[in-house]
């Protein structure tokens, strides 16, 4: 019964996401672009959500996204790789960097981990500025080519983006990556891995007492988180056809957190719902743009006070099992007075 409901919910969602929305906005490329951006932001936020799931607040997701973006841009513009190879390459490079950074940093708990990741975005931005030979410094890398055709054994899987409506192409590619990302996340949370991650969130010492390799699992979680950021960043940069040190800033890192909070940490779809609701409502209220950080902060405070488990924790009059099911406990990262 639940399985039927889940399948029904999933197909309904896919129908809206992949058919209805593109059809509604078929003649509004700008709006379609906004939706594509919302997709990719939700994908990057999904990584932050996973870190919440193991009880760590990652405030450096913008940094990982920037690493992914620059990796893709450099692989394409300097090494002449195709976008598709660069997309995978960017994800890979980000994962490697996250593991190197994570090995020492993940020993920190609670607010200490947040504080150190907070500096990661800045570190990434300054690094991008400091190696002009590779990154073009503050000018950034411009005029990135559109993704070419993806051919396997002479068979064209995806046509050259220049030869088709690129807005649609980007929308569907973004949707595909997002669906892939969230499907993986759903699978992680609902498999034994999810149990292990939840056990880390609740008590790392207890988990290690029955043989869980806590440091290794933490690094794995961060690597998955960074894979989302790297792939999302690479996609975003290709869509913008340019990358600057300010493509992802510290502000973006905090927005990724906010998307997770808004949607809810208790459900896999929290990051998705949060990113879409918040990003789209701001696009509709263009005039308020200069107050965006102010309004975001107020929302964040409000959420903490009145809806700590996010939008998805609101009980709807009809039961929409697809959303509420995959939960797991509301994750409040343990406020450990934490020794680093």
């Amino acid at each position, binding site marked *: 019964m639940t399985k039927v409901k889940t399948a029904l919910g999933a197909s309904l969602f896919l129908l809206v996401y992949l058919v209805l929305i593109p059809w509604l906005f078929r003649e509004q490329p700008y709006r379609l672009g906004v939706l594509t951006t919302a997709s990719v932001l939700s994908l990057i936020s999904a990584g932050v959500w996973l870190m919440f799931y193991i009880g760590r607040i990652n405030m450096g997701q913008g940094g990982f996204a920037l690493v992914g973006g620059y990796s893709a841009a450099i692989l394409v513009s300097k090494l002449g790789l195709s976008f598709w190879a660069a997309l995978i390459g960017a994800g890979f490079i980000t994962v490697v960097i996250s593991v190197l950074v994570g090995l020492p940093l993940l020993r920190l708990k609670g607010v200490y981990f947040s504080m150190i990741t907070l500096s990661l975005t800045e570190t990434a931005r300054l690094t991008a500025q400091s190696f002009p030979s590779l990154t073009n410094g503050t000018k950034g890398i411009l005029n990135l080519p559109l993704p070419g055709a993806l051919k396997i054994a002479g068979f064209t899987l995806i046509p050259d983006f220049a030869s088709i409506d690129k807005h649609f192409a980007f929308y569907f590619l973004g949707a595909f990556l997002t669906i892939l990302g969230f499907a*993986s996340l759903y*699978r*992680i949370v609902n*498999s*034994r*891995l999810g*149990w*292990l991650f*939840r*056990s880390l969130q*609740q*008590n790392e*010492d*207890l988990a*290690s*007492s*029955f*043989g*869980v*390799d*806590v*440091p290794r699992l933490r690094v*794995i979680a961060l690597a998955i988180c960074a894979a989302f950021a790297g792939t999302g960043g690479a996609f975003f940069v290709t869509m913008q056809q340019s990358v600057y040190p300010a493509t992802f800033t510290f502000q973006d890192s905090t927005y990724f957190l906010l998307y997770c909070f808004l949607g809810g940490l208790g459900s896999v779809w929290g990051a998705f719902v949060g990113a879409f609701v918040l990003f789209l409502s701001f696009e509709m209220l263009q005039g308020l743009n200069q107050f965006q950080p102010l309004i975001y902060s107020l929302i964040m405070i409000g959420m903490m006070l009145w809806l700590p488990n996010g939008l998805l924790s609101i009980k709807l009059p009809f039961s929409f099992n697809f959303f509420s099911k995959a939960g797991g*406990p*509301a994750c409040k990262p343990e406020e450990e007075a934490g020794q680093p």
Partner: protein
Amino acid sequence: MTPMNPTPLMEVRNLTKRFGGLVAVNDVSFAVQEGEILSVIGPNGAGKSTLFKLASSFLTPTSGRVFFRGEDVTSQSPHIAARKGIVRTFQETTIFRNMTALDNVVVAHHLRSRASLPGFFFGTKTAGEDEKRFRESASEILNYLGLGDVRDMIASTLPHGHLRALGIAIGMAADPKLLLLDEPFAGMNSEETTQAIRMVRGIRDRGVTIILVEHDMSAVMTISDRIVVLNFGKKIAEGTPAGIQNDELVIEAYLGREDENEEDVNEENVNEENGDEETQESNASSRKAGIENVP
């Protein structure tokens, strides 16, 4: 001292742990034989908890070695210790509070898992079999420890005594050879204690060796094969319960010397059960009763 077998299950040799200027554990050595129940007792601040963490690899000693089945296991990670069969429990608050009792124990079966991490992700057949096996085994453990009726309750809603048993159930799930119990009888009334003692003995009879750290003197005297007594980080006595009760140093550690101000002596070690026997007794003699009036 009892005669030693060639290879004890765990041997602790000249263990010392310093925290800055404080020497929490000072040159402590003892060994536990397979199938034994060994208790570590001592007044508050004697270094019991530190010793407990050192033995279970949750702390690294400043000097000294820990051997498990003759193998040097000093300064390894706690999860490696658990893999070798050295499993510790925590005091009651340390459980997965948001999970049901059953799920707590299922998760703790991690070590018995045959599937790999990607195997979990892709839901391979092995992973499915694991899951089924874990649920069965977890139910069995819960039933054995008398938690069968509350298996589907969220752990944070369980009463005190059940939480203690749940902590032990989590430890049992890891299939330990040596189970280290952290104050398993603390805060229990005499009926609960009797039950818990039976439970711990039952675990030993399943082939698990037990080291426990405990305040409850009468429970310790009842259950232990041997007792190690610490005071100010040093081992002051080791032996059978009967021997320990008559040990001058132990009595002194617990009761203080005659001329010492009684209030300096630790309140914690008073056995609460003795309170109602002779309420008008002085502090010191009730404490003495705690050591000597053993069922």
